[in-house]
């Protein structure tokens, strides 16, 4: 079952690289968070601990419902054109993603060479999600993509934590989820401010502070 979910997350991650428009990107993030929720639910059933259920529920609430709707609300208010402003066209991005996956698998083989395939697969997928999150932040022009990239990286790390160690201590998970939510809100506010001051949200044109 987990393998199915992991492949789902991998596909969604690659889909994220391909999409051109902002709402598609947010929708993609929402689906990826949903799959993440399912993976956590699966772990919860296997380990039968109440804490993980609460964590999963919290994850569902924060990452699937609250943050995406907030982002969509922002996009409607900013009314800026919805193109993502790509540095690398989708084809090149995909090739880069494959290269990142290969790198993640080499990295994981250094540590988890002998452990069972499920954990190894989860490790590779989570590291790939982190790297793709990083990729989106570096190679997309819009401010929103940087927020989404950040959230995707956090998703990857959350997947890593729950996959290889069965989840962090309960309170830590709660604190991290809350923190991610606050981070999304604040970066959203700043994006709104950029739009008000600069009338665009192309981050690559923000280069006054040099040297």
């Amino acid at each position, binding site marked *: 079952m987990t393998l199915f979910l992991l492949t789902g997350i991998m596909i969604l991650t690659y889909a994220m690289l391909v999409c051109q428009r902002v709402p598609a990107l947010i929708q993609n993030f929402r689906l990826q968070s949903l799959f993440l929720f399912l993976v956590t639910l699966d772990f919860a059933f296997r380990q039968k601990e109440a804490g993980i259920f609460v964590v999963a529920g919290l994850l569902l609430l924060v990452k699937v419902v609250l943050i995406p709707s907030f982002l969509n609300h922002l996009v409607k208010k900013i009314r800026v054109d919805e193109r993502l402003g790509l540095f690398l066209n989708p084809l090149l991005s995909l090739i880069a993603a494959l290269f990142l996956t290969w790198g993640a698998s080499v990295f994981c083989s*250094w*540590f988890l060479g002998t452990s069972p395939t499920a954990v190894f697969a989860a490790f590779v997928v989570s590291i790939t999600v*982190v790297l793709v999150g*990083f990729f989106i*932040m570096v190679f997309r022009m819009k*401010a929103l993509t*940087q927020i989404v990239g*950040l959230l995707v*990286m*956090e998703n990857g*790390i959350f997947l*890593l*934590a729950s996959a*290889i*160690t*069965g989840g*962090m*201590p309960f*309170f*830590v998970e709660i*604190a*991290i989820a*809350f*923190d991610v939510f*606050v*981070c999304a809100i*604040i*970066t959203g506010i*700043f*994006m709104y*401010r*950029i739009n008000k*001051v*600069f009338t665009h949200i192309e*981050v690559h044109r*923000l280069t*006054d*502070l040099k*040297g």
Partner: protein
Amino acid sequence: MLLFWVVIIPVLAVALSAVLPARSRGAANLAAHGAVFVLAAVLACRITSGTGVVVFGGVLRADALSAFFVLLISLVNLAALAYSRPYLREDIRAGALSPGQARGYDVLFNVFAATMLVVPLLDNLGHMWVAVELTTLASAFLVGFYNTKASVEAAWKYVIICSVGITLALLGTVLVYYAVAAQTAVKTLDWSVIMSRASGLNPRLMGVAFLFILVGYGTKAGLAPMHTWLPDAHSQALTPVSALLSGVLLKTSLYAIIRFAMITNKAMGADFTSRLFIFFGLFSVAVAGIFLLAQKDFKRLLAYSSIEHVGIIVFALGVGTPLAVFGSMFHALNHAVTKSLVFFAAGNAVKKYKTHHLHMIHGLVQALPFTAAAALVGLLSLVGMPPFGIFMSKLMILSACFQKGLYAPAALLLFFLAVVFGALMFHLSASIFGNKPKGIEFGKEALSMKLVFVSLILLLVFLGVMMPTPLQALLVSASRLIAGEGL
């Protein structure tokens, strides 16, 4: 109970400053931060004399290292707050700031101070990560306080780059958590527990985890290749805030790096971390030195000098002998005090001349004599001139380095320090001395601002000439924690 109060008082201050009117808000803030400073001092004395660890409710834990950092943070908070009172009053009178914004500033300031005070006290590494992330978010609004193009851009870069760094640090924390769980079947992130079991951990995994921690928290600490956000954030933030950013925020993330370094040293020996620290330290000092030469903005100059001093502290940690660690802690304290002094003076100068450009600021001695004196003392102390603290801590670090036999790094450090000295003198001596431009008339500072300057200068000279025994005891026990016996 002590720890509980140290954490709760700033939170109360947040609530109070949201509610109280302008007049009493200042007094309340000062009282709160004064109380925190006193409590920090009491905590330090109790730890050095007593058992060495103070715990409260499983969540908060303070040993010598965290007591020192709490003391450092509360000191700079107090100084920054004392300075921001007259600084803001001038802005409000000049109309650049509405009373509402002033209230917003106080709330944000207290939130920022509270989050920073919490970081050294949290035992759980996960909680520590969250606290460090919160400091970024709290200070983001302070960096972007004025709604101008430059400050918004600076705030955006600050938030994004630091969040990416922090995320990498989270990845490192998870890897440490995995290493602990895999090796000792105990699923915990409490630093004290991990420390007791650290010797059995898988060395290679811990090494990679430490790399992520070093790059992650290093971004927040302003180490060289990841320092790019620092000059923008410090030059655009309000002066008291940039003093806090430079003086203390960088050190909180350094504190986190030290915590993880202690675990890694126990797991795989000190050689791995010291080589990394020495490389990053020297690289930071080199990059800061070169960038300082080409600066034209007063506050960016001071920001790069912060990068340089963080580099020195990390280099000293890399040297690793008890004397070097003592020197690096002492350097952290000196740098915090000196940098806040210089930033306050810079703030006055920038406001007086209404420009950040060094070419337009000259003849400060004639325009604002007291600020010029403070700036000169701060400058001379920054570059390590004798009567001030940094000369002593630099001497300790270098002598530890020579004793350990690291001649090449020491020589490189001396060369880069000379470049930094030349750069700072080249820029600031032209702006402090000389004739003031026509348009600027002779100005006087508020009395309380003068009081802040005088107390900081006295503290600097005091630290430079002799070391008070309680502080020495605290630093010795902190260095014993990190580098073992020997001092």
